[in-house]
């Protein structure tokens, strides 16, 4: 790309593509802890619902806080306008370099469109419906923790007779099965259903078995270490009042946000990803990933897709990661709409050690690399409105490691020039994230959204490794254990 762009232009454009790289692929926390050896990090147990930040309602806030939020939103707007101005100037002044003008225009438009669409977003309306819901929980060597998960699920504020928990034992080698049976006995009949696969068949097989075993209209996927807010399920199902909706994602917060810098950055990242990318995607009815940690799916929609999803092959290897993204992808392909509900909140634990964090990131990047092109291949006809942004996000996202390495290392080394513009644009985008965060929440984490942007960019070349290892299905954490 540098052949058609002057480095200066490339710098701007590429720092914008960081946005793509930074948010799109991380917007989809996958269920991982359900299969992890350590179910819950000990130091996070205390951080319970009591510590939850208040929902983001403007009403009832002190005047000073309201002003701060307005100013932060103003800052985001100013940054977006500046990018628009830059695009206009480039497009009109640099006719000679048509390719770079087009590139700048396309990528910048994508970035600004995320903010603009997110501003238009509103959660699905409350229709007062209460469909039957089954919570499918795959369990592998969970031990006693599985009981806690079952109890938490049944503690949700939802009519008991319309809620059941389907726990699937994926060939655990410990006493998980016994704990499951005990939990079944402790709750009223019909509310807990236990299934034993007999041998370890993988998470997808476990989930598919759970889905087939129930007849509930709506399936709620919750990670074993995810904890939905009591009223979250009631809110989440409202979107299904629309018959065209196949899946809805709630918002997942990081429960152990205060553990260390890493979890703080992840917490800010989750929040911005949901409130920016998922919001924007929801406006056009195509959320590209309804994450397995807290999302609801329509059983009718996924039943026909179940067999193909359970045994998905990619480049000749059976897929073992990215099951939520793959499932959402298939729903979209069948013409269903997928939405995001920012009112339905859940909490989950994020890795607090770098090694585990990077393994998780690698899995996400791999699934993003696999599902991105698949999504592109059908979205142009199933959801034409959402297609352009997915196209830009996928292509620019795939190019981002090269682009970042070139602009931050190769070009400065060759020319001896500090990449001022690149770093500046990056800082501006990081500020936009931070201010977006601050305009909606007051938890002191907004600065971590800024710092986290630089952090995430710094290891974005990991995508190259993900591409190289895309056929490797190992879970990483399990192999290490």
């Amino acid at each position, binding site marked *: 790309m540098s052949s058609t762009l*002057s*480095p*200066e232009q490339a710098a*701007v454009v590429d720092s914008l593509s960081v946005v793509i790289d930074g948010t799109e692929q991380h917007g989809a926390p996958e269920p991982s802890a359900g299969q992890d050896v350590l179910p819950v990090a000990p130091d996070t147990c205390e951080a319970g619902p009591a510590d939850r930040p208040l929902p983001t309602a403007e009403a009832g806030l002190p005047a*000073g806080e309201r002003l*701060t939020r307005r*100013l932060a939103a103003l*800052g985001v707007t*100013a*940054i977006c306008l*500046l990018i628009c101005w*830059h695009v206009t*100037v*480039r497009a009109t*002044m*640099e006719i*000679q370099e048509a390719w770079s003008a087009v590139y700048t225009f396309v990528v910048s438009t994508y970035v600004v469109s995320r903010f603009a669409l997110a501003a238009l977003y509103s959660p699905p309306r409350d229709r007062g419906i209460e469909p039957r819901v089954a919570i499918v929980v795959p369990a592998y060597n969970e031990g006693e923790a599985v009981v806690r998960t079952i109890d938490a699920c049944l503690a949700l504020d939802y009519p008991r007779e319309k809620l059941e928990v389907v726990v699937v034992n994926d060939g655990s080698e410990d006493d998980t099965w016994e704990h499951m049976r005990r939990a079944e006995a402790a709750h009223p009949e019909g509310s807990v259903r236990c299934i034993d696969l007999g041998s370890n068949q993988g998470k997808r097989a476990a989930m598919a078995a759970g889905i087939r075993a129930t007849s509930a209209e709506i399936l709620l996927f919750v990670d074993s270490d995810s904890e939905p807010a009591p009223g979250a399920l009631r809110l989440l199902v409202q979107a299904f009042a629309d018959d065209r909706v196949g899946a809805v994602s709630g918002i997942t917060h990081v429960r152990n946000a205060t553990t260390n810098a890493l979890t703080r950055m992840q917490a800010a990242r989750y929040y911005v990803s949901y409130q920016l990318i998922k919001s924007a995607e929801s406006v056009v009815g195509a959320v590209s990933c309804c994450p397995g940690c807290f999302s609801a799916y329509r059983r009718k929609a996924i039943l026909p897709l179940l067999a193909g999803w359970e045994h998905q092959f990619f480049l000749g290897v059976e897929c073992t990661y990215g099951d939520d993204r793959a499932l959402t992808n298939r729903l979209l392909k069948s013409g269903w709409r997928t939405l995001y509900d920012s009112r339905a909140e859940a909490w989950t634990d994020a890795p607090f050690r770098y090694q585990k964090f990077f393994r998780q990131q690698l899995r996400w990047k791999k699934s993003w690399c696999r599902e991105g092109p698949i999504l592109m291949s059908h979205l142009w006809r199933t959801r034409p409105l959402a297609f352009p942004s997915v196209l830009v996000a996928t292509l620019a996202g795939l190019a981002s490691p090269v682009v970042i390495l070139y602009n931050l290392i190769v070009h400065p080394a*060759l*020319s*001896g*020039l500090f990449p*001022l*513009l690149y770093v*500046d*644009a990056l*800082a*501006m985008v990081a*500020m936009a994230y931070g*201010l977006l965060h601050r305009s909606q929440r007051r938890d002191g984490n907004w600065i971590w959204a800024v710092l986290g942007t630089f952090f995430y960019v710094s290891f974005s070349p990991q995508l190259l490794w993900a591409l190289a290892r895309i056929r490797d299905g190992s879970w990483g954490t399990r192999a290490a254990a």
Partner: protein
Amino acid sequence: MLLRRLSSVARGMLVSLTLFGLMVTFVRETTPDRVPTNPVPTIRLTSQETDRAAAFPPIVGAVPAVVYHDISGRRGGDSVTPEAFAEQLAVLKAAGFAPVGLREVLDLVLGQPVDLPERPILITFDDATSTQYTDARNILRRYGFRAVSFVPTGQLADRTPSYNLTRDQLRQLVDAGWGVGSQTDTGRGMVRTGEETAGPWLTNRELHPDGTLQPVADWQSRLTRDLGRSADVVRGFDRLSPAALAYPVADGAPSNDQQLSALLRQQVKQRYDLAFTSASRGDRAISRYSDRWRLPRLTVTADMTPGALLDALTRMVPQPPTSQLGLWKPRAVGGSCVVDGQSLRLTGSGYVRCQGSINDESWRDYSLQVEVSGGGAGTTAMVGIRDQGDRRLEVAISRAHLVVRERCGGQGWRELGTVSVPWTAEATPHHLRIRVQGGAAVVSLDGRQVSDVSLDPGIDHGAPSFGMAANGTDAVVFSQIQVAPLPRRGSPS
């Protein structure tokens, strides 16, 4: 409570200021130059020009350098119109020229192996005029050339409109493949040199109001600062090219202290790898024999047609030693000089000299054979070797003597040997053979070696010349002229 409120206001202001700074930087860095670049003129060469270009011979071991200043329709000065510039580049391209940069030139003058195109050319710009960005860049790109811009770094502009290049424009030129050299920082600034005179400070010591001249040490420290600053700025733009300087003042610019030029050269040597001059007749291409700190460039002017440019380049390119008198284009001074095959006939009275106008840069080690005949009793025939005008080895034959002598610039003549010549009544032709190789010359007359001398190191290259000194009107014929290159002494080839 108040403290908390104050601290939150302070934090808010800090964030706002940071964001403001980021945004201002962004705007500054991305605002494109408001000066639009001009379209490339369309050029169609005539068939004559194309033929002329196609016949341009390959250049071996040399790089002609040209210098432009301003590409515009501005009148006067060194401006070349975009149309003329495009035409000149079109003909250069048709002739098969390809651009080289400072790196290749440095390797060439250092005598290191260098991979040069078949017809290399170094295109340079002086004065950092903004038309290098608005016009020259696109025209050069159209014809596949790149250039080196020598910038007076103190004159680079920060914003447009500006007569000089802005830093941003220069950066864009570098991104487009241009090299950057220095033209000092403020070397063209003027100082008072007399009651009503001024001159560039680079070659003049300032005349203080009390009538005393600026001490040389002051002048020198100013020079050191200037060259250092300029080199730093240039390095900030172009880290890859060797450090090069173009003298911002013309050769022979007025100076009120003759020792300054030597001091200037000394400092330039310390800080730069290469230094360029310019002349309207850049009569030499750059070769391994060139003075690294006084490399010649041809100033291209507006009135130079494509044909004239090719002629000028032909003159710059060194021609290997050859016996073809037609290529020598001999010119006579003080009489006439007629070429007929391998013969040359001088006629006139008094002192007549005939010199070739070939580029003899590479005429170093060669032998010359010639039959000398004619001439009356009081006439002396002269053959010059490695003739650079005021430097040459000369063999003078009269009726009685053969004198071998050398001339080294202003030092006049130095006699190296005298031999008696056997007198013959029929005035049969004398066969003269002179071999020069390295610092030694061997002269043979009629098959007999008569002299073996060492030469002044200044007499290192040049074509032969022919001359005659007669009392009245007379004629001397130099016939069967044969020149053969000799292997370089001390080199394996």
